[in-house]
């Protein structure tokens, strides 16, 4: 008897926690979201056994699409091993009994908090985002009735004013995450608080992207191979962050890096935010400039495995 069957027999949870009526309601919202790329579909978000801000929207979307044969990967800020990823992965292991993985290539459903894997996703994969504030215009216009009208009329002047004010104040567009995009030349959308480094990956992505916001009760989607343009100006074109150093552990260039403090004497290093990508590269023999540093080695995992033995 497999794990799924066991959970079923015990009668503890319906498969993937949600009841079937809720799943149907969310599934219908997902279909509308796919049919209207970038439009935020209201849905009757349920209270989940975790607080808002932990990804209740993403969890509900994942629970509604997940099947027995799926292999699930959970990422929190690029890492498989941080609190949010570990607890949500545990949630689905317990309630759905599905196979889970750290490997991007192995997963059929990837739920993510604020990063897109460095490795290109395939057509048979689905990327689920956890979204805190789905409305890109919310901090410019607090009234839902107004923002809804603005989307209906395709009135996005205010967003351009905001980006212009960025330039006027800072000399460049200072928005670095949750950078607004225009989907399929129609809806302005918040790609969730991913760094703008990830915005180019959203454009023409081979995988289906689903976005769930639990507290705000919205679901939206970007179908595969959809044009997604980051908003900018002709004289101030959209640019992604650049890092002058490679990853300290695996030496990868042109990837998104996290700063890690090593000691209290100013020691620090920059490592891949995508932990699976970094591990895979190190396993393939890539070595970064900091890999020999004992403090760095401690967090690189090699030593962590020894410690647990």
């Amino acid at each position: 008897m497999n794990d799924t069957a066991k959970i079923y027999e015990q009668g503890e949870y319906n498969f993937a926690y949600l009841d079937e009526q809720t799943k149907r309601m969310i599934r219908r919202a997902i279909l509308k979201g796919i049919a209207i790329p970038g439009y935020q579909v209201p849905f009757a978000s349920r209270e989940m056994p975790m607080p808002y801000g932990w990804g209740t929207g993403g969890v509900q979307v994942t629970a509604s699409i997940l099947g027995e044969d799926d292999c699930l990967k959970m990422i929190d800020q690029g890492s498989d091993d941080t609190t949010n990823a570990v607890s949500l992965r545990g949630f689905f292991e317990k309630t759905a009994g599905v196979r889970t993985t750290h490997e991007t290539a192995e997963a059929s459903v990837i739920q993510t908090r604020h990063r897109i894997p460095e490795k290109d996703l395939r057509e048979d994969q689905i990327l689920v985002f956890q979204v805190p504030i789905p409305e890109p215009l919310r901090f410019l216009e607090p009234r839902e009735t107004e923002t809804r009208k603005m989307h209906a009329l395709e009135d996005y002047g205010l967003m351009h004013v905001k980006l212009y004010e960025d330039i006027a104040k800072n000399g460049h567009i200072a928005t670095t995450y949750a950078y607004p995009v225009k989907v399929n030349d129609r809806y302005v959308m918040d790609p969730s608080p991913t760094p703008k480094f990830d915005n180019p990956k959203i454009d023409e992505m081979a995988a289906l992207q689903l976005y769930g916001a639990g507290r705000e009760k919205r679901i939206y989607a970007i179908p595969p191979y959809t044009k997604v343009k980051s908003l900018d100006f002709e004289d101030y074109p959209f640019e992604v962050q650049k890092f002058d150093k490679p990853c300290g552990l695996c030496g990868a260039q042109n990837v998104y890096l996290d700063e890690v403090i090593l000691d209290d004497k100013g020691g620090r290093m920059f490592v891949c935010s995508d932990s699976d990508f970094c591990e895979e590269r190190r396993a393939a023999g890539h070595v970064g400039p900091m890999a020999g540093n004992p403090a760095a080695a401690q967090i690189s995992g090699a030593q962590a495995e020894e410690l647990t033995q």
Partner: protein
Amino acid sequence: MDTLTAVNQEPVQITPGFQDPVHEAQACFRAIMNATARPGIRQKISISDLAPPAPLTPTGAAIALTLFDYDTPIWLDKTLMASEAVKAFLRFHTGAPIVSEPVEAAFALVADATHLVPIASFNQGSAEYPDRSTTVILTGQNFKAKQSVTLTGPGVKDTERFETSPLPPVFWDQVISNAKQFPRGVDLIFAGDGEIAALPRSSRISIQEA
């Protein structure tokens, strides 16, 4: 009371729904989702041993059991509406209210696609809430036709060729106008025998002459 009397006079045998409602509905939904995300590409849909009363097809029934419930008013075309057995099957398994006006429906289920009412008569959604439109499900499709259309737009890598029948004569002209009013408009699901394809309103369509 009329329907009740009718049922009493001529008791209808209601055939079973999904054997495993949780996983079969999930598998069907994934097929429908993949179809919507990849317009024009046919997806296999598992209909297991569904044997709904004719003229409702097993594929149409699988879609109904996956998406319909008490929250979704449904509209049936004349052929399906004429069958007490079909109505009883849908009422029993989904609890969806059956409405007589196309504009009130969340889903429209069509058995005789040749005589489909104009798709403009279904709910198109509003500019503020384009998601409130009707999804039209055409059953009995064979994915063969003399006339094919070329699709581009979200979900389509480069272009996609799509053909199906039976359809009413001016169908593709209607679908082209439907796409022009994006984000408003209806979404279409074509159900064949164990396979489906979808045409969301976001797809841009050009007609290929045979």
